[in-house]
């Protein structure tokens, strides 16, 4: 594999790992191991720098000139199946050292892998809302309300993602909707309380991958990435709290609950 081909392969794999919710340690480790499998030792002919929004890879050419590629992540989603597949691919590359065409073929296969259909995701949101409403002390009425609201949250997220909102705005909007709908359910006598509905439906907004990645980044010593993800998680949490607080305080005053 030539240095240009190596650059192409490693940047593609690193990018995909970053965009699908892998922690920084995994991105750097996979890429370094692939490079070392082809004889490009880290620190001598190969360097990588990755933070959540950016990845920079430098390879030394056969005649000693450095080649660098920098790529910025556009969208970040949580697709852990893809992370798992890429992980397997990099393990396969390390043991078999396949040629460039083979690796590219595998990468495009991973890109083509199906995700769960949208209706399944909507149902999963509904299930999360319904079970967590029960979990946090609601009855069956609250559970149904939580499920319906959570399903609508999924539709809102899908619709709003197109305009590329900030993470803060997204969680603010969703939590505003959650609290408004829950308080209205209570006001019209559909449920006996609204606390468990709000907590249950809002659990769908909890940035689980971000929080876990944040802690694992800190442990691995990637403090810049850890701070980045920590701030992201805090912003989401703040958005949730502000949205719900605004809706509850306004509506309870307006409706006189």
């Amino acid at each position, binding site marked *: 594999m030539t240095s240009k081909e190596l650059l192409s392969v490693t940047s593609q794999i690193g990018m995909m790992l970053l965009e699908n*919710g*892998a*922690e920084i340690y*995994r991105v750097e480790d996979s890429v370094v191991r692939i490079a070392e499998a082809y004889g490009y030792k880290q620190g001598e002919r190969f360097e990588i720098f990755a933070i959540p929004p950016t990845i920079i890879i430098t390879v030394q050419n056969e005649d000693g000139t450095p080649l660098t590629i920098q790529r910025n992540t556009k969208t970040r989603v*949580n*697709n*852990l*199946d*893809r*992370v*798992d597949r890429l*992980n*397997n691919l990099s*393990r396969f590359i390390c043991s078999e050292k396949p040629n460039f065409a083979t690796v590219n073929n595998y990468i495009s296969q991973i890109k083509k892998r199906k*995700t*769960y259909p949208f209706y*399944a*995701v909507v*149902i*999963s*949101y509904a*299930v*999360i809302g319904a*079970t*967590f409403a*029960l*979990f*946090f002390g609601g009855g069956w009425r609250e559970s149904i309300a939580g499920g319906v609201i959570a399903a609508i949250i999924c539709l809102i997220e899908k619709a709003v993602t197109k305009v590329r909102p900030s993470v803060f705005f997204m969680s603010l909007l969703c939590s505003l909707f959650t609290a408004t709908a829950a308080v209205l359910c209570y006001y019209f006598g559909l449920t006996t309380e609204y*606390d468990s509905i*709000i*907590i249950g439906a*809002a*659990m*769908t907004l*909890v940035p*689980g*991958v971000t*929080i*876990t*990645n944040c*802690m*694992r980044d*800190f*442990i*691995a010593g990637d403090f810049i990435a850890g701070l980045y993800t920590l701030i992201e998680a805090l912003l989401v*949490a703040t958005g949730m*709290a502000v949205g*719900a*607080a605004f809706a*509850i*305080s306004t509506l309870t005053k307006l409706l006189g609950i």
Partner: protein
Amino acid sequence: MNVLNDLVLPALYSFIASIAFGIQFNIRFRHIIAAAVGGVISQVIFNAAELGGSSEALCYFFATCAISVYSEFLARRLHVPVNMYLVVAIIPLVPGKLIYQAMIALINGETQSFADQCTAAFAAAGAIAMGIFAISSIARVFRVVIRKKGI
């Protein structure tokens, strides 16, 4: 003590919700079940620690340690990223109720109650973080040792 309400139902809810989160994170089905078992373990350990008289933060710590060990072990055996199990299992532990009550206290102007709930929520979040920190750090050391020995 009510066995059904205190032990069985939270574990069941946690199991179902974990499966749904697995779909949200696009994890394949056989891994989803394994991850959801992690969600059950977290609730069982949490409630057991609570019955044993541990403080709330300690309950969170024990539960997180348990699922971290479970995830690290399973991930090494099945050669998958640890995150796949850890992320799903940790979500039912998120102290949503404490944060919500803190927010309600804040908008009602109950400063003392707000401070209490906030402290409890931060203690819970810190305990969860410490649980992951402790186990993941130990797992990292093991990984390095295993690689050095070339096993």
